[in-house]
Every structure is written in C-alpha cells, then in structure tokens.
C-alpha cells in the first residue's frame, strides 16, 4: 500500500518536474541570451513571493494532427493566480521554449480557464505574451482556440482590468487579444506585434522592413498607439505592470484602493500662479500643473509617446485614483487631432468602466485643421471623445486653464456635456474661436476696407480679447461654477471629489449605446 502510494507521489513529482522543465535547458539559455526571462521567471517577478498557485501544470498538449511534433505537459503556457502587493490577480505566461510559445488547443483552454475564473471572482487578468502565434500543426483547432480567447477578452472587458505585456513576438491573429485588453506593455528591442510580418510584406509590397521597424515597441508607442507603455527590459516591465495595477480597482464593482502618500489635501502651489505666460501665443508645459496637483507628484502616463498633444494618465488626489485628461500646449499647441481624440476617448471609457473619476485640464485652441485631418476622419474620431466624455457617469470635473475654443472646448468634458463641476483659472479664454479668426469674421468688411487693414485687425483682435479672453463672461452666465486661483487647484479638486463621492446617475434603459467607433 505504502509502496504504491509512494510511487504515485513519485509520479506526481516526476510529471510536475517534466512540466516545469518545459522546452529544456538549452532553450532556456537561448531565451536568456536574447535578453528575455523564461515564462516562470517572469511570474516569479510579477507576483508576490510564494503566492503563485498554478493550474493545469499537468495538462497535455493535444499533439499535432500531422503526428510529428512532441506533446508537452503544460502545452507552452503557465496559468494560475497569485497576488500583487497582496491583491489577487489571474495570470497566464506563454513559454517560448515550448514550441515557440505557439498557441494550440490545450494552451488556449488553459488561458480560457483563468479568464473565466477571473471574471467570476472579479480579479484582474494579466497576460505575458511571448508566442510565435497559432500552432500551425493544430490547424483549425488553433484558430478556434484564438476565437475562444477573443470572446472572453470581450466578455471580460469593463468587468475586470485586462493587461497585456508583450515580451516577445506577437504576430498574426494573436495580436487581437492584447489589442482588446485595456493596456498593452511592450518591452523594447525584444517584442514586436504585427498582423503580417516582414516576409509577407516583402512578398506583397516588395518593401524591406525589419520586425523592429514594422512592429517594435517604439513604433507602437509613438506611431500606431497600439502600445500604452514601453519598458526597457523584462524586469522593469513587470515592475511597471505592478505599478499600474496599484492604481486600479480589481473589478467594475469596486473602487480603486486609497493610497496615502502623506500629501496635504490643502497644499497650495504658488508656482501655478505664474505658469501661464503673459502672451497667450506662448506655450508652457502642462506636466508642471499635473505634477503639482497630484498626490506625491506621482503620475502614471498612458500613451506617453503617442498623440503627445493630449496627456492621459492616472494619478491620485486625496489618495483616490483619478483619470486625468489634459491638453498639452507644448505639443501642437494642444489641438485635438485624430490620434488625440482616439487616445483620450479610449482612456475615458476605461476610467468610466472602472469607477475612476475623470478630471480634464483644458487648454485647447480647437481641432486640427487641414485635409489630412478632415479626410482622416476628424469628424468620426472627434465624436469618439465627445461620446466617451458625455457617456461617462463617474464624477467628472473640468478645469479650464487657458484656451477653450469652439467645438473642441465642448468635447473636453465641458459643463455643456454635463461634467459635474467645472472651474476656470483667471487666465481662461472661453470663446467660439481665437481672437484673430473671430475678428476677421465679425469685422471682415471694416478690416478690408480700411487703409491699414493690419492695424484695424489688431484693434479688433484686442477688443475681442478684452471681451472674451477671460472667464468672467462665462461665469456671469453660470457656465462656470467658480473662477479659482491657480495655486488652489488641488484643494478645490479634492473637495469636489469628496462631494461627488456618492454620485449616482441613471440613464435610460438600453442594450448599449452606439459609440462612433
């Protein structure tokens, strides 16, 4: 009896060891040589020490229909759950040493299992992607398996935060799972994402391009907007994932944790009174304001390298996580263009889904003019941001810093699309358009018939500036709840967030709205 039991234990031990050995020592060394960690090492860094509970370590790959490939225990992905700073999360980590991390049926079933559990439990899902793509040998089963994952990504969207960390290749259909998730991290120089790789590009379009140039971290972080964060290496990537998680609630029914950074809520910052240059054509750096008002000057910027004319990211006010959307006058004067509208729109919807109050810091001269933008669909894209802000039911506060011109002003979480409370700095200019354009429209005849058109234009501009380039007209009309001293911005925001804490909004019943995607 004992002997048999011992044998069973030994078998278990042997099988577990086999599964842990994965693709073997040689492949592990290879992975390290490429500057990458193994799937298991990554989980060790991501999760609190000793907290990982693994599932399906004994799950066997279904084997190839062609019967040539060996089947592996674990099938090239490690799944389970563990904690990050004491909070439960579900994880899967693809193992490049096993058949190139390729996704077969069993591999996908393991991922689906943890995703289902995550939604049931209400805990974030973190995927560490390092996979050559669909396991071709498994044919349609591999494709079907992707579909199952996509389906679950969509079902989980807005229920639990989903984070993807691309730490190796991610190509073909496989890219769509990360792209549905809320945030994508990419590791510089060792990860890439594309739908069709360089060899296909070469065949179809005869262009020579490297994987890095086609779909590396830098490109996706600056040009395409696919990557929300880029990180130097695996170790730092996993740290950053932990940092992001610290801002988020575990699911859509909870609030984000309150983190006390011992920063006084009524702290004032006299520097802000001097932030806005006396000449309204001069720029300033919106980051100064952001870092000044947030707890501990800590800000986790999302999409830092993409559409830099708008800044989105997480910070805390009075310990509470807030989502910040701010125009950046230092880049393209802070105009809204296609990319900026898309970037901010998606960020706003994430915050709304996860009970994170929204704060907009407005200095927007308008939408970007020109055929590129118009033909690129600025009407459609701008509408996304408009829709996202309008639809959001979380507490919404808006602070007009300087320019608030035309439609772009309305879009940026204005009172008119029902933000809860709006403030203006004394430097605010709320108007249909900038002084030059306005003067030219209103006084067109007078200007052109004048002896010195420029002088008349300047005079009319000045007149317009006097009338509209201040927040007092809007305040008189009740469109602004208060005109505040810049130095006090932080304390106003924190008080208002406290007041809005119990905000409840219920819209009409519907299946879902039809955001202009």
């Amino acid at each position, binding site marked *: 009896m004992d002997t048999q039991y011992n044998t069973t234990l030994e078998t278990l031990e042997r099988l577990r060891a086999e599964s842990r050995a994965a693709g073997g020592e040689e492949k592990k060394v290879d992975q390290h040589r490429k500057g990458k960690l193994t799937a298991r090492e990554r989980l060790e860094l991501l999760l609190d020490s000793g907290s990982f509970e693994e599932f399906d370590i004994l799950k066997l790959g279904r084997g190839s229909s062609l019967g040539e490939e060996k089947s592996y225990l674990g099938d090239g992905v490690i799944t389970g759950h563990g*904690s990050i*700073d004491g909070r439960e999360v579900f994880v899967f980590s693809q193992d490049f040493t096993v058949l190139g991390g390729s996704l077969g049926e069993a591999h996908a079933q393991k991922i689906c299992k943890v995703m289902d559990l995550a939604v049931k439990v209400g805990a974030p899902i973190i995927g560490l992607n390092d996979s050559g793509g669909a396991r071709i040998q498994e044919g349609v089963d591999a494709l079907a398996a992707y579909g199952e994952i996509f389906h679950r990504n969509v079902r989980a969207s807005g229920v639990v935060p989903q984070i993807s960390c691309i730490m190796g290749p991610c190509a073909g259909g496989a890219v769509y799972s990360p792209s549905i998730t809320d945030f994508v991290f990419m590791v510089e120089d060792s990860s890439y994402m594309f739908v069709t790789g360089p060899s296909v590009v070469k065949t179809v379009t005869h262009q020579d391009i490297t994987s890095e140039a086609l779909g590396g971290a830098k490109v996706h972080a600056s040009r395409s907007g696919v990557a929300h964060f880029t990180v130097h290496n*695996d170790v730092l990537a996993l740290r950053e994932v932990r940092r992001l998680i610290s801002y988020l609630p*575990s699911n859509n029914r909870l609030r984000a*944790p309150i983190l006390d*950074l011992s920063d006084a809520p009524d*702290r004032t910052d006299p520097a802000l009174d*001097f*932030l806005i240059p006396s000449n309204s054509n001069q720029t300033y750096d919106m980051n100064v304001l952001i870092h000044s008002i947030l707890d*501990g000057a800590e800000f986790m910027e999302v999409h830092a390298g993409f559409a830099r004319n708008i800044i989105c990211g997480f910070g805390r006010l009075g310990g509470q996580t807030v989502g910040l959307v701010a125009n950046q006058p230092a880049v393209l004067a802070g105009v809204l263009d296609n990319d900026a509208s898309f970037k901010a729109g998606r960020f706003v919807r994430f915050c709304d889904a996860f009970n994170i109050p929204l704060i907009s810091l407005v200095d927007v001269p308008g939408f970007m003019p020109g055929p590129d933008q118009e033909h690129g669909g600025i009407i459609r894209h701008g509408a996304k941001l408009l829709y996202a802000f309008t639809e959001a039911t979380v507490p919404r506060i808006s602070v007009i810093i300087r320019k608030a011109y035309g439609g772009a002003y309305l879009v940026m979480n204005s009172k008119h699309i029902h933000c809860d409370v709006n403030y203006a700095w004394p430097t605010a200019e709320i108007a249909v358009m900038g002084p030059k354009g306005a003067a030219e429209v209103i006084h067109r005849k007078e200007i052109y018939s004048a002896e010195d058109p420029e002088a008349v234009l300047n005079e009319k501009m000045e007149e317009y500036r006097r009338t509209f380039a201040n927040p007092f007209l809007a305040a008189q009309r009740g469109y602004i709840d208060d005109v505040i001293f810049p130095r006090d911005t932080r304390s106003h925001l924190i008080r208002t967030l406290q007041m809005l804490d119990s905000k409840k909004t219920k819209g009409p019943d519907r299946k879902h709205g039809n955001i202009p995607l």
Partner: protein
Amino acid sequence: MFNKILIANRGEIAIRIIRTCNRLGIGTVAVYSDADSRSLHRHLADEAVHIGESPSQKSYLDIAKIVAAAKATGAQAIHPGYGFLSEKADFAKAIQEAGLVLIGPPAEVIDVMGDKITSKELAKNAGVPVIPGTIEAIKDEKEAIAIAAEIGYPILLKPAAGGGGKGMRIVRKPEDMKDALAASRKETLKAFNDTRVFVERYIEQPRHIEIQVLADSQGHVVHLGERECSIQRRYQKVIEESPSPAVSPELRERMGRAACDLARQAKYVNAGTVEFVMDAQHNFYFLEMNTRLQVEHPVTEMVTGLDLVELQLRIAAGEPLPFDQSGVTFNGWAIEARICAEDPTRGFIPSTGMITRYAAPRGKGIRVDSGVNIGGKIDVYYDSMLAKLICHGKTREDARRMLIEALNGYHIEGVSTNIDFVTSVLCLPEFAEGALTTGFIDQHFDGGVSKRSPSLQYLQLAALAATLIYHTRTVAVRESLLHMVSDIGGKRDLGRMHQYKVRCQEDLFEVALEGTPVSGETCTIRIDGSTHRVEIPTFEFFRRRLKLNINGQNYRFRIRFEESFIFMSFNGISRLFEVYTPKEWEMMRFMPEKADQSLNNILLCPMPGLVVDVLAQKGERVFRGQNLVILESMKMESGVASPVDGVIAEVLVDKGQAVEADEVLIKFELEK
C-alpha cells in the same frame, strides 16, 4: 542720506540693495524689462519703471532710459549693482550730468581702472607689484617673443579690453606665439572691437585673492581684508571665501596696505575691490580693480559684520567712513557658493524655464541672497546666476560643513542648477585642505563630474536613503489594499527582513531593513555589513526632500523618482540608485545593457538661443565631440558638439537664426 534711489540692475543684487534700503528707510525704484515684468525685484521695490524690451541692450544697458526713469521718479541716486552699467564711465557721466549721484566711484576713476594698461601703470606708480610684462600693447609676434625671452615662459597673452577670459592665451614656447596671438586678436576683436593685446608672465598654480577697500570722499581709505576666489570655471568664480587659507595676518596687512595705496593713488571713492594673483610663494601681483560692489561681497560682510551697501550709500551721500582701519575686525570664516541655472552634466549649458519648486536653506549662519522664487522664469537674456548661498562658521571647516549641509537642502526644480556640482567641489579633500588654485576645477573635474569617485561612506548613506524610500513606497501600496482583502483576497505576510540590492553605476550595495519601518520609531538598517540606526520620519513623497537622522546625525537628501528608480542628490553625489529585490537582481544579469537611446544621426539644439556661428559644412567629415555650432544663450556662447563620427548630410540652421531647444541643427550620414 538719500530719500530715494534707483537700482539699475535686476535679480539677487537688486533685491539685496532693496533690503538695505528698506532697513535704512530709503525709498527704492526698480527698473525692469519685458522679461522681468513678473520678477521678484520688481515687486519688492517701492516703485518700478518699465524700461524696455528683454535684451539688455534695450533695457538694462540703456543709459538714457535708466537716467530718465530716475528723474521721473525723483530718485536722487543710482545704484548700479554689478555687471550691466556698473563699470561704464559713460553711465557715471550721464548720471552726473543729470544732476544725480552714482553710488560708486567718479567716472574718471572708472575710466582709468577699466583699461588694463592704464590701471597697471597706476598700480606701478602706487608701488603695487604688477606681473612682469609689457605695459603697452605689443605690435606683432616678434616683439612678443622678444619680451617673452626677457620675462620668461610661460607667458600669457592678454587683451587690453574686456574680461571673463575672452581672448586670453597661454604660450609655453616661442613657436606657438604666432597662432596664439592671431587667435587672441580675433577673439578680442569680435568681443570688444579692440585688438590691443599685451604680454605678461603666466603665473603657475595661481590663487585669486582680492582685497575689499572702502574710500570716502574725505580721502579716508580702509580695507576689509581679503577674499579668495580661486575656485573658478572658465574665469567665472564659483566659490568664494573670506578669509583665505593662504593669507597670514602679516600678509593680509601687506596686501591691504597695497590695495589702500592703490585706491589713494586713484583718488578712489566708494567700495572697490583690488584683485591680485598670488603664486605658490605668496608673491602677489595686481590684476585689476573692480570699481563696484562684487558678487562675492557677502563673505566680507559676514566676517566683518558690516553692510557694504549701507556704507556705499553713506559714502555716496558724502558721509565720512564711520570707522578707521583699527575699527575693522574679522570674525570667523565665510564661504559662498554661486547657484546658477546651468547643467554641469551637459557642459554647463545655461538652463531656462520656470522654477517649479524652490526651497532655500535657513538657519543660523546661513545667508541666501536670491533673485528668484517659486514661479520665477529664467530667460535666455540675462546671466544664469540665480542666488548665492553663504555660510558663516567659527572656522573654515565649520563653514564648509555648514555650506555642504545647506546645499544638500537647497531645492530648485524646473531648471537645472549647479548645486550638486558646487557641493562636490566643497566635498573634495583638497578643498577641505585649502589647496586651491585657479586651475582647481580643471584639475579635479572632467565635464562637470569629479574625477575622483565619491566617498564610499556618502554613497552608502545615499543607498540607504534610497532603499528606505523605495521600501516605504512599496509598503504603502500593500497597506492601501489591506482593507479590501475580504473583497479581493491575497497574501499579506510581509516578513521581518527585507533585503535589497542597490546598484549605483558600478557600485553595488546590499541593504537589509529589519522589521517594518514605522515613522517616529528607529529602525536598524544594514548596508554591506555595517549597521545603522535610522530614525524613520514621515515620508512626504511630494516634497522630494528628506531629512534622515542616521546614527544620531542629520543628513539631507534630495530625491526624485525616475521611472522605477530613485535619483539622489547628496554631498555632491547626483546619481541614479536602482533598488532591486534579490530576485529581481538575480534576473537582472540576463537583461541587456540599456542601449543608448539618443538619436545619433541628428544634432539637436540643447537649449533655446541664437546661432552665432556654424563651424561645419555639408559633406564635411566630423568627429564626436567636435563643436559644430556655436550658440549664444544667457550672454554665454557655447559650442554644440557632434554626437557622432560621420559626414554632415545637411545643415539646417544659419548664423543669426534663433533656435529652440530640441530643434534639429544638423543631420549626419553615419559611417557603417
């Protein structure tokens, strides 16, 4: 005494003058340019007059506007401060003609002292030693070589006009004379529209010692001892002190007497400074006389207990000096550090922007003469000095330690400053020993970084502080989640020992924290085997300043999170500290070294400014480190060096063009 004076200056000196005027009940009128419309000096004065556009030629150097402002406001006298018009005889004349008083010497004296040749003649006549050399401008290199043979190499070629080291050349052998003379003439012509150059003996291992003198209109002259200003970078003083560790009481008396003789000979009135160069044998030679208040006057004020601005005002008002030489006493030691908006890690290029954080040190024996405050804007138009920090102690070592502590606590953000650089100068053992020469910085620093690695003890303290911050911040996140555990589950055991590996460039530290640090309690922290008792403060992460009591002694650190890491500034160390858990550190060995992120096929403009010259053309082969573009910003010309070896593909800027920071100046073709 005057009822109201106008201050024809800006920044810290204007404010410093206002302070004395306020104490004496004298009304003040400030002048300001466009760029200074929100500046501190404007608001601290009783009245302020706008005198023009931002470039100083159109404002602070415009004599007519300044005199008109004084007339219009009813000011009786004008204090020129230093720089700008302070040593312009024309200004003194204009003031006199307008029936006003210049708080400074008569125009004729300014004239004589402003010229290196006439001033040297005057010194000779007063019996003050001067450096062997010509007293007349040389004709050509033949003459120069002949004179050099007489006085001995090495020699220095020195332009008659100007200052700040422009046009100076050291020549060590006759063969080099021709090129050096040509270069010197070219430079001095460009800078001062004057080609007169003279030759003198070059003093090796020189120290810069200057004597403060005061002379009243009744002919009384006293000196207030010496200041040593040997710590200079490119002829710009960085650290000044009084007294000098190289000057004995007997020598002080001799130098003081020489300076007073010179002042008498020149019929000098008001405060002035006689600058000497001193060789290793304590021979001193007259260099020049500055006919104004010096930047570094506070060190003299702190050791003598006098207010030089007050004395200037009294002298200008015709009062006699209230004391004679025997009434001048010296007490303790004072050291001053100049705080400038410049980036030592990038060749000291001027830094512009808004000051987003500002906290100056305070305490007994600490004086801060600052021209800026939070919200202040640092523009390209004026010089980059923001403030002066002066500490006064019983001994030199006292003052040095106080100054280091005070600098550790001096917090300026928004612009780069030289705070860490001056701190590292003060921390060098050679500085502590007083082994100073004007070549000190070149000798001990390379590109703004000390050639000597920082003391291990300092690095350990910084590593300890960085780890404590990192740990506390990490624990805060865990604690934020505790109350939610019923909702979200998870493990909570933190353990008792917390080990970290801390990397700082090539140094690696093992740090272990025992127990959980609780603010108000003491925690034991081990670093590489040595044990430290640390009182845990309340961590206010916003402040980015931390005062830690380690083993009973207080230390101040400046801290900044950079992504996952912590940048520490402490005792001249300004480095990134990477704090890793042991597991992370184990994995770090597989991580590739961070690739150089800089774009290397373009040359970016490092700062806003004006292109003075473009030194390379399309198609030219250039080398890494070679200056390709000369920029002028904040009155300073600086070269922008090539980041690569390569061939120039395109030059995108022209002479005279205004450029912004990060604008592409030049594109390269890289060699494969």
